[in-house]
């Protein structure tokens, strides 16, 4: 469904990705694990057009997305929940969700998706009229995911959904990710520092190190891989 072929990207004179290739199959949860600065977030930014791709190709459902503008890529059905949540803090929760459906015109569909999101994240329903900036970190993350779902994407990219969130809420959020994946058949590309959790919920994983793919395997194999255990799982 989503495929990267030898993607090179970077910031200024620094090259952060040295020819990354990966595949995400339809309906699966695929995770990118790796240490700080390995290029996980950069990979997502390159896919969603927030960062220019210098070499290589990004393919989504057979279409080439390389270096399209971010808003065009969203229109193709590929949503990105950026790191650090980045909700619209001055808008209300409901307005944030409506912004997620910005590109859509089917009112009935938007309304039913909004209902689905509020059903999935009851915490948001309690706070629809609250200014989003006043939500807790975990609630903001739920809102960011919910907002991305409002665009009815076929593939969702999540960047560090557990960052700075109370452990109890992290568990809830990951359960929701799995639930959405099952119920909607939504493909998920997950970037996560908490490799343990990420490999738990995903079917396939890639290990990134300094901008290169080091390993790729089914998640349950990666979990038992001694090298991965030593480096990322703290075993």
């Amino acid at each position: 469904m989503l495929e990267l072929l030898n993607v090179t990207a970077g910031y200024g004179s620094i090259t952060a990705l040295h020819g990354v290739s990966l595949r995400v199959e339809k309906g699966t949860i695929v995770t990118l694990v790796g240490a700080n600065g390995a290029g996980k977030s950069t990979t997502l930014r390159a896919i969603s057009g927030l960062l220019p791709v210098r070499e290589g190709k990004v393919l989504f459902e057979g279409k080439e997305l390389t270096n399209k503008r971010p808003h065009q890529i969203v229109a193709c059905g590929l949503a990105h929940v950026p790191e650090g949540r980045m909700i619209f803090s001055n808008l209300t929760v409901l307005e944030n969700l409506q912004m997620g459906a910005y590109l859509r015109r089917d009112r009935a569909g938007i309304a039913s998706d909004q209902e689905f999101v509020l059903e999935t994240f009851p915490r948001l329903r309690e706070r629809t009229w609250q200014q989003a900036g006043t939500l807790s970190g975990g609630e903001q993350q739920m809102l960011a995911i919910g907002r991305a779902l409002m665009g009815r994407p076929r593939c969702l990219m999540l960047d560090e959904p557990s960052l700075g969130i109370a452990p109890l809420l992290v568990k809830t959020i990951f359960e929701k990710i799995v639930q959405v994946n099952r119920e909607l058949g939504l493909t998920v590309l997950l970037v996560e520092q908490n490799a343990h959790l990420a490999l738990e919920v995903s079917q396939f994983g890639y290990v990134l190190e300094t901008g290169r793919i080091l390993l790729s395997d089914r998640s349950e194999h990666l979990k038992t891989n001694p090298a991965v255990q030593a480096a990322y799982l703290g075993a």
Partner: protein
Amino acid sequence: MGARSLVLIAALAVGLVSFCFTGHPEAAWPLAQIDDYLLNILILAGINVILAVSLNIVNGHTGQFSLGHAGFMAVGAYGSAALTQLNGKACLASLSFLGSAAPLGLFVLSLLVGGLLAALAGLAVGLPSLRLKGDYLAIVTLGFGEIIRVMIQNTESLGGARGLAGIPNHTTLGWTWLVSLISIYCVGSLVNSTYGRGFLAVRDDEIAAEAMGINTTRYKVTAFVVGAFFAGLAGGLYAHFIGYVTPEGFSFLKSVDVVVMVILGGMGSTAGVTVAAIGLTFLNEALREAEQYRMVAFALLLIILMITRPQGLLGGLGGLARWLPGKGGKS
């Protein structure tokens, strides 16, 4: 101060204004009895409201920082004056089919032309410079404002540094406040529309806005163009009010004046910015005795405001949530 009460006040004022158009000012209209000095201040206040509300789209709602608003005002002022003063005879002749309304028709036309020229200038400066952010954008817009001023100063056909005198005095209180209310209405309904929420999204978080599928560059340019258009209208009104325009009148300091109104009123709050523009115009007159020390007073006012109400006079009060019907009780 919700949207509804604002709209109500606006409707009342429009009714008053239209009354002043139809009725004979000397006879029926009570405001006609007010003295010229107060009348002039009220007109200046109206022009300042247009400037502040239009800059608020760029600086307040979209979160960009423009310091070149006086430049757009200059384009509007000179553009409209070019029609009514420099080419007045020829233009009047071509509008002769309007009969005795021809001068007024030309005035309205010149305002629109001034506004459109300013909008064009906004597009010209917006397209290349809105790739910049924050301080850098401020510097570029500041530079642009100065470029306009210097260009006019060196254009002999526009009067050069001497300025342009003898512009017909068409601007009345009615016209000024009619245009102010139109600009308040347009900006208000633009920003509160579904489309307009994109401006707020760009301000709150540009990356997230992009990730929602919002073309942020287009939004920023739109804000610039709309803001410049209304600044151009304000410029046209100003030129036909004072009757005399000089390049110095549109210096960097004029831009700063408008920025102060926006900050004082509350970034992104149309009502607050309107109040601040009127208030500052009157304060400026009230402190006329103090001469140079006025600037000290303004500076102190800003400092006090920053300490006590950093969100501005009415900023935050007019949050979108409060403007929507059926806000479900307490949050």
